């Protein structure tokens, strides 16, 4: 079980309010991702849940029981840190055993759990090594191993993949998702990378300056961003945001259209091709001089050739248009 409820939880560092009072419910077994730009308070929020920081106000409940004043170890949560925070002088086995040893578990039980975790995480051959002798991905797995042996009510991850190279990141992303499938334990995952959020989450919580901007499934956020911030943050490449007359034509302050919802060919818009990025599967064109916005990004499927300086016409899919009012909120 791992249902976590935040009720008007607030955090101040001195006079600076990093997290204004916020409410959030994380259901049992859910994979929740906190995403937002760097410095928006994601880690702070996670550390409040973990108990590594004291709340300045409000209440945290885990499985309905008040946890606000419980020390971290009593909350039944396990955390994987960005720096992995492995104990450098202990072998991998000792690292993974450490929480069990602190819990005073029997030797057999310790061995059984550690061997099981090592097998799940492909660490069996490395149990006698020190963290310093492991690669980044292996260290990451040791950190996860140390978390899973405790069989916690929920896992907390703070940007666990940010120290890995791109290829490894994709692999670990998959492994963590699979781990969630298998354990079906609540996971809270912090990242600034919206791709990680989109690919892993059951539920995404978009944060800005400690505020929750929107909570929803990846596709909800993609289809119906609640405001301009979420619209610009979710999706890659980012949504084209257009002000002025064109927006006025749609009775909005700003309209947004994702690059993948504009096709090259016959259409009402026209511009000059600037830089094109060829990914093979897709081609991104940065189109200038459209009279709409400085640059309009267009995503064309497959290999499409247009030279810089070519004039092309663009056809937005009008049913995929997002409209935002002067307050930045979505107009239904």
């Amino acid at each position: 079980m791992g249902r976590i409820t935040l009720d008007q939880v607030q955090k101040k560092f001195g006079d600076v309010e990093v997290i204004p009072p916020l409410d959030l419910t994380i259901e049992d077994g859910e994979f929740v991702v906190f995403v937002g730009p760097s410095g928006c308070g994601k880690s702070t929020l996670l550390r409040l849940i973990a108990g590594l920081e004291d709340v300045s106000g409000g209440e945290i409940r885990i499985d309905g029981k008040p946890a606000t004043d419980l020390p971290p170890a009593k909350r039944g949560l396990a955390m994987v840190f960005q720096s992995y925070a492995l104990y450098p002088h202990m072998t991998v086995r000792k690292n993974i055993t450490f929480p069990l040893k602190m819990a005073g578990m029997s030797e057999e039980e310790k061995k059984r759990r550690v061997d099981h975790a090592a097998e799940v995480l492909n660490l069996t051959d490395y149990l006698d090594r020190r963290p310093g002798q492991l690669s980044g991905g292996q260290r990451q797995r040791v950190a996860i191993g140390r978390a899973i042996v405790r069989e916690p009510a929920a896992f907390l991850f703070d940007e666990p993949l940010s120290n890995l190279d791109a290829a490894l990141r994709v692999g670990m992303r998959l492994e963590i998702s699979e781990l969630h499938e298998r354990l079906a334990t609540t996971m809270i995952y912090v990242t600034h990378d919206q791709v990680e959020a989109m690919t892993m989450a059951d539920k995404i919580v978009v944060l800005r300056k400690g505020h929750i901007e929107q909570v929803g499934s990846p596709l909800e956020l993609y289809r119906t961003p609640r405001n301009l911030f979420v619209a610009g943050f979710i999706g890659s490449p980012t949504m084209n945001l257009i002000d002025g007359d064109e927006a006025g034509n749609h009775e909005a302050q700003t309209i947004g259209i994702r690059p993948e919802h504009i096709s090259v060919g016959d259409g009402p818009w026209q511009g000059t091709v600037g830089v094109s990025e060829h990914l093979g599967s897709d081609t991104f064109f940065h189109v200038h001089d459209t009279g709409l916005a400085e640059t309009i990004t267009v995503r064309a499927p497959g290999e499409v050739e247009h030279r810089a300086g070519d004039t092309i016409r663009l056809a937005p899919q009008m049913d995929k248009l997002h409209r935002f009012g002067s307050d930045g909120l979505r107009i239904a």
Partner: protein
Amino acid sequence: MATQHSRAAARIMIAPSVVLLLAWMLIPLGMTLYFSFLRYNLLMPGNNPFVGFENYAYFVTDPAFQAAIVNTLLLVGGILLITVVGGIGLAVLLDQPMWGTGIVRIMVISPFFVMPTVSALVWKNMFMNPVNGLFAYIADVLGMQPFDFLTQAPLASIIGIVSWQWLPFATLILLTAMQSLDSEQLEAAEMDGASAWSRFYHIKLPHLSRAITVVILIQTIFLLSIFAEILVTTNGGPGTASTNLTYLVYAESLLRFDVGTGSAGGVIAIILANIVAIFLMRMIGKNLDA
């Protein structure tokens, strides 16, 4: 300094300082060795004949020699124990965020800046003196007999004085090491259910092991040659109760004007220091690897 050429140039460049340093070390060492084989007493001018190992035999069979060795080891061991344990304790305390840490840190460091002779005299006359000392006064207030530290427990008193001088050094090194500990490791341990004591024992102490090794090695070098503190407090006495090897060499060569025996004692002290160093490196040197 990768190429043949640059390496040769580097050798030529550093040659003068190497030669100077070698001469600086080798000439006194050679002279000490040379004198240690001569009968050379300043009170008996003569032709200083070569006597082989006679000086060594004389020095080693002196009853004061055994006492001096035991005292030297007790001094080094006792002071190391006090400073390392105390240094770890102070480092843990000073690492806590608290009000006025800056001032407290400076105060903790300051004994290190007091000259050994001065601090030994202050301890001798203002604290340990059985008539005027602060401890005698406290004993008096409590209605107890004043304790004459330097007569009744000379070695322990010197251990106390020198520990007081070296505690700041150990604290400083260990505090710096403590501050380099990744706070996420402590938080991870906290989440893993480790109590404050477990966090100290399983995380902080292993993290400090290298710094502790450095403290022990550096202090041993200096503590093997404690001299000023003994000279100004007990003069090695009563009897030989607080005579260490350095003081014995001084007593032999300078008090008796016997250059030959003094030199032999010096050579023995060098050998002994090296034996201690080898033992230390065997025991704790592995902490410095990797």
